[in-house]
């Protein structure tokens, strides 16, 4: 039986009807019913909800009329720039998962399963995240990616999300990395599409190392929410680097729970925004164990009416002694109308910890600009040098090919920025 969608979900009847129709078509397990009920209560996030005040999904999707069920899986897409890494490539083409046809390396297993409410189960109660509830309720398929105990996967695993059309897409990924395993996972979000929702779960066992790269390069009309909710165990390492060129509204959200001692995490992210593009990087790192290290750095460069959002929270539980956590967010505002909103937070209940956060926003340094120009660089070239220098810290630990892919996006953005001035 289809559950009525509360009127407060959106202000738009067409979207309400679409959600309701989609829900009616879903396999309605008890857990999914609970998730949809939760979504019906809270609706799409809007600016009056703390944590979403700068990322109004309800407003962004107003007047959005989803197409009838004409979801197309034949999108044409170029080879990935990451192809030089010879990755194991998995594609989500408008939500349909295509696994590689070639044999997988030993220790790696891939499967397409029914969606789960795992992300919803993990984050439910942490906030009124209607998007996660909605994804848990109406997503159809989930990619399951298993790295077996002790396995070192030498080739990167590339997960491409190809988006087009006006049908909202809801997809999931479940990553399970066994004890003492190693893997690099690259996620790209490409193309257009109107509304894309991806929830992923990471289960990282003891002494495991996972490198995660995220690249969002989508049309300026797209609305996207990409959640990564992870649970980490003792002495594991998680290194995440993300770059977004923004979209109409885009949120890259990372929620990590440290459930073992001596975990090390690095989170690096960059946003490059022009026009009316928006990029929101939100994270919540829950330190539940001792002697864990977290390093987080976020950089955003915005021009025109670009809007950069950073919301980072370190939660340090009572027993998480010797936590060493540092969070830095810096914004470079390249025009008077560009905007950066930062909300760094520390919530500390342990008494023997080192935690710090910093936040800056400003323009290019006039002294540095003059120095470079005095050496012969044109104004455009000097500005480009300084913008790249500003962003360098977010990508300088990547392997050469991955760094070169990220640099290509930065250079393309700079070229468009300089040409647009």
């Amino acid at each position, binding site marked *: 039986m289809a559950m009525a969608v509360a009127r407060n979900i959106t202000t738009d009847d067409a979207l309400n009807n679409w959600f309701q129709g989609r829900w009616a078509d879903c396999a309605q397990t008890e857990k999914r019913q609970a998730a949809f009920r939760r979504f019906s209560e809270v609706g799409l996030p809007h600016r009056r909800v703390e944590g979403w005040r700068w990322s109004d999904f309800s407003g962004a999707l107003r007047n959005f009329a989803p197409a009838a069920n004409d979801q197309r899986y034949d999108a044409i897409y170029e080879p990935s720039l990451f192809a030089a890494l010879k990755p194991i490539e998995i594609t989500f083409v408008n939500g349909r998962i295509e696994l590689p046809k070639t044999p997988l390396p030993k220790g790696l297993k891939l499967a397409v399963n029914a969606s789960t409410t795992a992300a919803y189960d993990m984050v439910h109660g942490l906030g009124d995240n209607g998007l996660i509830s909605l994804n848990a309720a109406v997503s159809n398929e989930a990619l399951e990616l298993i790295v077996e105990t002790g396995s070192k996967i030498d080739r990167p695993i590339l997960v491409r999300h190809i988006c087009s059309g006006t049908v909202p897409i809801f997809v999931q990924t479940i990553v399970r990395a066994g004890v003492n395993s190693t893997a690099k996972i690259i996620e790209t979000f490409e193309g257009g599409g109107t509304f894309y929702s991806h929830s992923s779960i990471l289960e990282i066992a003891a002494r495991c190392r996972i490198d995660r790269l995220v690249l969002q390069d989508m049309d300026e009309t797209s609305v996207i929410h990409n959640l990564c909710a992870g649970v980490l165990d003792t002495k594991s390492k998680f290194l995440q680097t993300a770059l977004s060129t923004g979209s109409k509204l885009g949120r890259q959200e990372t929620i990590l729970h440290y459930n073992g001692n001596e975990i090390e995490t690095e989170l690096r992210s960059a946003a490059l925004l022009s026009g009316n593009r928006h990029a929101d990087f939100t994270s919540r790192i829950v330190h539940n164990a001792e002697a864990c290290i977290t390093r987080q750095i976020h950089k955003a460069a915005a021009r025109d009416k670009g809007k950069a959002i950073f919301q980072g929270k370190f939660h340090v539980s009572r027993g998480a002694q010797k936590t060493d956590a540092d969070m830095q967010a810096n914004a470079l505002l390249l025009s008077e109308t560009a905007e950066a909103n930062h909300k760094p937070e520390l919530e500390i209940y342990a008494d023997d910890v080192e935690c710090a956060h910093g936040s800056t926003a400003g323009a290019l340094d006039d002294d540095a600009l003059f*120095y470079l120009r*005095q*050496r*012969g660089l*044109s104004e455009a070239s000097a500005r480009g*040098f300084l913008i790249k*220098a500003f962003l360098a810290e977010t990508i300088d630990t990547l392997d050469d090919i991955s760094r070169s892919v990220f640099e290509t996006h930065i250079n393309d953005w700079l070229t468009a920025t300089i040409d647009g001035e």
Partner: protein
Amino acid sequence: MLKIDNLQVSIEDTDILRGLTLEVPAGEVHAIMGPNGSGKSTLSHTIAGREEYEVHSGSVTLDGENILELEPDERAAKGVFLSFQNPMEIPGVATMNFIRTALNSQRKVRGEAEVSAAEFLKIIREKSKLVGLSDEKLKRPFNVGFSGGEKKRMEMLQMAIFEPRFCIMDETDSGLDIDALKMVGDVVNALRGPESGFLVITHYQRLLEHIRPDRVHVLAGGRIVKSGGPELAERLEESGYDQFIEAA
């Protein structure tokens, strides 16, 4: 070569240069000495094209061309080089990539062929030995973690690589030890020639022992108040600037 005529410059509504006139003929080294606040750095930044300095009147010509109309990078391509008093650190800028890009930008404007990566590597290795900077320093982001003296060596490295026609050295000697002073002298003397000129701004006579100037000028109150030969620097070392401050 460089002619400055009745130059009047202010910054943030404060008059700094008040009708400065000076000529440095090709092939000569001129030293400018003067008390703090006399306008020495304003003069160097104005010649180099810093836009915060507002030029109210006067002219600065290089080989007859008024360079005040040119952008800073256009002046650099014409051969104007400023060795900064306080060179900055620029994290994230790869040193060798920056210097090569700058060199080739200048060359491109002048219609000269670009220097290849291999040629550049040869040049920078040779010149870095001359100024005493190790390979490790060149691999760092620009000036990051450098001491004051090392930053001055980096200025001299760029000067040696760009081979500019007209060099302004803004208190390059400050913070340098005796060996480094000699290095600066070596770089300048190697670049000296009938087609190049130097304006050496300093507080002390000690640098001038390594770079023998053709003329010495005293800048006080925004004007040149006294000019003479190298012996003027020696006299200033003994008597100080008081008499000139009063005269200004």
